[in-house]
Structure formats: C-alpha cells, structure tokens
C-alpha cells in the first residue's frame, strides 16, 4: 500500500494533467443530477451523482497509474529527407506490473497510437515523420499522452530524451550512371592514354595501339582508370547550380554509391569527404548540416 502511494506521488510529479471538454460535460451532468437529487430528494439520483463524482475523481488516480510509470526515450530514426515520410522510433517500456492502455506518443504534430503495453514489456514505437527541410531535426516536446480512463483528463508525460536527428538533403538530380558516363567522357579522347604496354594477346582490340603494331611492336594503350578501381570524385561546385541542388545531387550520388558498394569522394569547399574514411551516414550528415 505504501509503495502504491509512493508510486502515485512520484508519478503525480512527473505527469501533467489537463482537463478535456469531457470534464466540462461531467461538471454539467453533476450539476444536473445534483439539482434533480436535491430538489426531489431522489436517493437513487444521489447514488448516480456520487458514483459519477467518485469515478471522475478516481479517473485522476487511474490515469496517473496508467501512464505515470512508463519510460520512453528516442531510440533511432530512419534516414529522413525533406518532404518524404520517414519514421523515427521510440523505445517505450512499462516497468510496472499493470497494463497501460490507450497511450499516444505525440511528437510535434506527429502521433503514434499504442493501444496497450503489457507489464514489463518494451515496445519500439514508430512515429511517422515528414520533415520540411534538411538539417537538424529536434523535437523538444515529445510526450506520452493518454485519455484513459474516462477522457475527462489528458495525462501528459514528457519524454526526456526527445527526438534529435538529422534530415538529409532530398536526393535529387541526375543518376550516378549518367555522372559516371559523363566522367568517362571527360577523361579525354582516344589519344589521351597514359602510356603503352606490351600486347599479351588477351587485350581488347579497342586497346591495341595500332601505330606500334605498324612499327612491328604490338602494344596496347594503358589508361589511368584501368590501372586501379575507379573512384568517382564528386565536386561540390560541379554538382549543381545552387547549394540545395548541389547537396541534393550529392546526396543522391552518395546513396547510389552506397547501394552498389562504390567508394567515392566528394570535394567540398573546405573538406574532402571520402567514403572509405568516413561512414556514409557521416558524409550524409555533413551534407545535411552544410
């Protein structure tokens, strides 16, 4: 019993309570029943009146116990892009021995409904989010809310570790394949090879250096990109006309490179980002916060 009251007092401090419009309804009903009971001395109406009063009063205790012991924290988020629906996940655990009902997780205008959490259960709650712009996304007012049991009081439990993530630039622009083809072209003309090597008989005809063949010394052209695996280098300024367009383009290329396992480098105004040195998420974050 003592622990019950201790729990109640502790949760009372944590949870904010706000009256809803149904509490007004309860007040009106109490007043009407009071008039009927008092004027006519209808004891059955008195009974209903007192039950209504007791249940409305008890709603505070039941509501507090329902939500008060829940623990919620931001767990992780999917990669978020402006204008696209993504998801972030909250870890919600119920350390109490009782079920919790009708919980809603509010993050700004985003809401996730959790109908029930069993005793000692931990759930990952998905909150759908559609960010409006790139950059850091922070919600300082994520709350757990519940109207349980009677909808007369809204119980609000603030989440201490709230949403703090990064919205990456919206991937847009020309596909990586186009970039690579263009890059290949930009490497130079057929004559722009780096040197000659002896013909082994296995090379493609297109690589045969015909002037050497004419001289009687069959040789093949050696190009720079064939010497080692090609690593595309994306130049920030060459990626678009405006910063946002460049970031979107770079983001798209980064994601495509990640998809096909292609290492890459990005030449930013004051920094060189290399995928084999920094993680993809770090590069995306850099782009997001640029």
């Amino acid at each position, binding site marked *: 019993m003592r622990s019950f009251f201790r729990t109640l007092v502790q949760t009372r401090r944590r949870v904010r309570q706000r009256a809803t419009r149904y509490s007004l309804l309860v007040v009106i009903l109490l007043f009407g029943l009071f008039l009927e009971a008092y004027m*006519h001395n*209808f004891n059955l109406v008195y009974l209903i009146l*007192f039950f209504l009063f007791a249940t409305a009063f008890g709603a505070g205790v039941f509501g507090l116990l329902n939500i008060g012991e829940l623990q919620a924290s931001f767990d992780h988020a999917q990669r978020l892009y402006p204008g696209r629906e993504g998801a972030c996940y909250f870890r919600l655990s119920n350390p109490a*021995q009782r079920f919790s009902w009708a919980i809603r997780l509010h993050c700004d205008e985003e809401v996730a409904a959790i109908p029930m959490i069993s005793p000692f259960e931990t759930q990952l709650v998905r909150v759908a989010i559609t960010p409006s712009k790139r950059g850091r996304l922070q919600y300082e007012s994520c709350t757990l809310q519940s109207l*349980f049991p009677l909808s007369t009081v809204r119980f609000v439990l603030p989440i201490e570790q709230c949403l703090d993530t990064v919205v990456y630039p919206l991937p847009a622009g020309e596909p990586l394949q186009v970039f690579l083809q263009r890059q290949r072209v930009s490497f130079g003309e057929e004559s722009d090879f780096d040197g000659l090597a002896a013909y082994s008989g296995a090379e493609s005809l297109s690589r045969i250096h015909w002037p050497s063949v004419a001289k009687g010394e069959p040789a093949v052209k050696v190009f720079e990109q064939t010497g080692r695996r090609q690593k595309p280098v994306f130049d920030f300024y060459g990626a678009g006309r405006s910063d946002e367009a460049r970031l979107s383009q770079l983001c798209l290329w980064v994601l495509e490179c990640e998809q096909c396992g292609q290492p890459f480098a990005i030449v930013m105004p004051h920094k060189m980002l290399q995928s084999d040195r920094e993680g993809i998420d770090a590069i995306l974050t850099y782009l997001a916060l640029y």
Partner: protein
Amino acid sequence: MRFLPISRFIETSPLRLLDGACLLVMLPLLLVIKVPMLLYMLLVFSLLFFRKRATGLTLFLTALAGVLALFLSLYGAFNFSGLSRLKLFVELLIYLLVIAVSLQRLTREINFYLIISPILLMALSLFFFHSISMLLYVLVEIFVLLWLILLHRMDGHVSQSLRMAALYFVSSLPWVVLLFLFFPRISFEHAAYGFRGDEVRRMGHDGTMYLDSKALLVPSERIVMEVSFAQRLPAADQLYFRGSLLYVDRGDHWEPLPRRLTQNSKPVFESAEQLSIYNITLYPTQKRWLYLLDLPYEAPKGATIDADFMTTVPEKIDTVQHYEATSSLRYRYGRATSPAVVEAASRIDVRRNPRSYALAQQIAQRYPDMQQRADAMAERFRAQALRYTLQPKPLDLHHSVDSFLFDKREGYCVHFAASFVLFARMAGVPARVITGYKGDLANSVKNYLIIKEKDAHAWAELLIDGAWQRVETTAFASKVSADRGTQSSQDDADTQGSLLLKKINLYLMYIKYEIETWILHYSHFRQMQLLEEARKNPGFLLKFLLAIVLLLLLVIVAIRVLRRPSCSDRVLCTMRPLLAALRKQGYEREDGETMHAFLCRYLDDFPQCREIAEIDRLYERIRYGGEDTTGAHLRLQEEIRLATIRSGRA
C-alpha cells in the same frame, strides 16, 4: 476470468457502444413509454437494423412519425392541466429525447446529446422508479456504462476492461458510501414544485366497523406498515397500533364521535412511562390516520394527537410516509375526558339486547367497584364459551349482543369488541371500541416488525376510575376455530418447510426495509438522526467507524485481487503453485533459466521425486510438443497438486 486469453477482443465502434448504453437505460423506461412511442422506437430499430441510409426524406418521415407517436402517446393528457403532473411532464421530455436521439442515430454521426443521452435517460427514468429492484438496476447500469467507456478506451479488450471496470467500481464505493451518508441534505420529502402528485389507491382501515356481512374478514398478507424500534421490540401484549375510536353503535356498524365533540381537545397524560421510540414506514391508505403504538406520546411532524390519542394528518395519505414517533407503553389517562365523550361512551339502547342488559345489571348491582365489575364482565364473557372464527354465522343485528353472547357465540375481533363495549355500557361502565392493528411477533426480526392487513384489529377501552383501560376482548374466546389459523391461506399448511419459507421471507422483508430506510428513503431527518446518535452514543460511533474501516479493507482486498496481473500464459499459470512451493524449499528460478533446466536442477538434488520429472515432461510437451489441450493441462495440474502436497510434507 483468470484464464481468459488476453487477446480476446471485440469489435467496438463508438456508435455500437452508445447503442448498448441507450438500450440499457431504456429498458426500465419501456414500462413507462406508451405503445405509439414504442412502435416508433421499433420503426427506428428496423431502420437501423436494415442499415437504411439516412437521407433527408428518411429523416423527415422519421421525425414526422415521432411527432405523431408523441401526440398519440399523450393524447388525452395533452393539455396544460395534464402537464401540471410531474410524471407526465417528464414523460414528455423522455419522448422528445427519444425522437432527438433516434434522428441523430440514424445519421450515424455522434454528437454531444447522443453522448449524454444515456445519462439523461437514466436520470429521467428515476422520476418513475424508486424501488429496490431499481436500486439494483441502477448499480448495474452504472457498472455497465463504466465498462462500455473503458471498453471503448481499451480497444475492445473484454476481459481486461471488465476487470478494470470492476476495479474502478469497487474503488468508488467508499466515496459513494461516505458521500451518501454525509453529503448535506435539505429536502425532507419529495418536492412537488407545483406539480400534482400521481394518485395511488390502496384499501385499508377506514375508520368504521361493520358487523354485518361486510365485516367478513378477508385476510390479506398485504403490508400496511413497517416498524423499526430504536430499542427492543415491546412485548406481544403491547403491540397495539391505535387507529380510530368508535363510539356510536348504528346496529350494523360503528361510527366515530361527531367532529364537533372532538375538535379543539388536547391529549392529557396523567402518567407516561416506558417510552418507546420507533420509525414507521406507512404505505398509502388514502385515509388520514397514522397508526401509533398505544399510547401515542409524541406525534410525528405535521400530525396531531387528539384527546382520545387518535393521530391524524391534515391530508389523506397517498404516498409512502416515513415518520418517527414516541409512545408510552405504561400510561394512565382519562380524567380529562369531557362529559360529552363520557356520555357518548355510555349511550345504550336497552331495548335492543334485553337478555344481555339483564345480565349486565346483575353484575352492576353485585359489583359496585368498577374494576371488579369489569373483571366480572370479562369472566362472564369467558363463561359463555365463545368461539373465535373468521367465518362466523351472521348475527341478528337488531339484537347484536344477545345474538353474539347467547345464540351464535362466535365471531372475531369486531364482534367481541362491539359486544363487550355494549355490555360494559349496559353495566354502567363507559366504553368504546378502538380499531387499528395488533402486531404479531411472528412477523418480526430483531427490532423490526411488519404489520399486515390481516393484523387489523379491534379492542375495547373502558373508563374505570377515571382512566381508560385497554381490554383485549378476543382473549375471552374459549375456543379458536381452525380458520383462526387460516387467517392467511398459507397458514393451514404450517409445515416445517413453510415456516422456514416464512422466516426467510421475513428476513428478506427486513433486508428490504433496511435498504429502503438507509438508501431509498434516506433523508435530512435520517442524516441528523445518524449524526445525533453518533454524538450521543460512543458505542454506535465506534461501530460505525468500524463498519467504514471494514468497508475500506474490503475495497482494498478487492482492489488487490483485481489488480493482480492476469495470467496471459496458461501453462505458466498452472505452474505457479509448484514454483511457489519450490521457492519455499529454497529453489528459485533464476533469470534466463529455462523451466526444464530449473526442474532438472531440482531433480539433481531430489532424484526420487517422480512427480517433478513427470511435470517436466508434461510441461515440455504442452509448451513445445503441440499438446496444448485441456486434458494435458488437467494432467499437469494433478501432478502439480501431488508434487506440492509432497513438498508440503517434506
């Protein structure tokens, strides 16, 4: 409920839940609502059942049908004078609400008055019903409404919402009880507020006494009043509830004194001892008498006691009356009786009963002392071998006393009392007939007594040495006819079984009375009485506080039981007693330890314990072997029972 799977859900749409709530609160109102409106409700149900789309035309036609049903339901009463009756007015409100709710329901949209309509209908129904059955129904309504709200909040989770509703309901009880007892009350009675009361007709004691065929007594088990004494019940020979006094013999019947002789006279006690305080619930009699125990000492509020100690109220009693009264069980009065009353109590027509008159005169001459004379008269009556019967032969009403004493020699209280009073007057003793009720201790439990119509009684009062003395005239009967036992038809078969049933019935009546007294008719008066008793009587206060503490303890126990986490895993629940028994032996299942590993650990120490091995096998088969059947659970339960018994012995 313990093993209800927690995934047992039902589909709950708010509209369906509201339908359920409305149906629940409408049930008692179906007894009030007139047929046209019932037909209208049937029409609405049909539309809802066939999922008729609520077009503008449908709504218009439904509204039109509603107005027509309203008109037909109130036809005849539908005028301004009719509406001055409270219940008719409330009925009109109910009809309007039913029409509004029906129209809104057909649109399938929830709005404000659709949400509050169940509570409104419930509140309106309480204008019509105040009985114990309604009390029980109201409790059911409150619980179910609470459950429906929680069911909605808990996404249709039946077992958990029921558990939560029960928890909620039980935890509200102490508040309700305390508020009910101590919330300040003002009203003493149901106020009419300009509305006329609805008439209730009931037959009963009517202030006259017939000796002819009209006097044929029809025993009735109908309850006239219920009496609760503050202390112990008085003795059986003191349970006379005084009604009217009859002085004038009209041959075939007796009448009271003309009003001019009794008005403006006050009761005068010469001595009043052994005061008894009691509460009475008197059902409507359509008469003005209040029946108080002989002899009324203090009248209830609004009632008057006249010089003959007859208690009346200004208006006919057409509603249930609850009053407290005080009576003196040992008293003396009569010296202040006016000469006109004495003269009326002495008036006799000597020509009508010559044989009796002669006999009375003999007694009068032989016994000049009035008390001895009265005793002699009583002896004379006893000597006449009179028989008490409820089906006497008709008397010769021109010579009623002679006919009763010498010819027929049988009758019941009315004949005994009338004859004795006339005989006393013939012997020169002023006498009168008192009618009322005589309580029967067989109809009592503790300090509670029921007075039924069959307890109606008549007795005599003689003015002896300036004091009125009560005489139980039926005591002069030397024989009691078998039909005395058949005052109620059931008494004939007073077997052991029927006596038991009678006793049970009496106890039920007692419980009913207590509920009515402390719940249905609880009032400012009763509240003040309770507080006064608590103030004066520390023992009562202590008992009261103990009762409250007991209630709180019961609620706490109920809450603990209801809050206990339910078993979502049936096989683990079955294993619980075993785990508890092993824990007592020092074997605790560790975190992450499988049941098999745990039981094997135990078996390592106690290899001879075959039940545990069997339990392990059964557990594995139920849990992982696809044998999750009732039979397998029963076998597991049996093995666990044996194992726990064995571990208890160990």
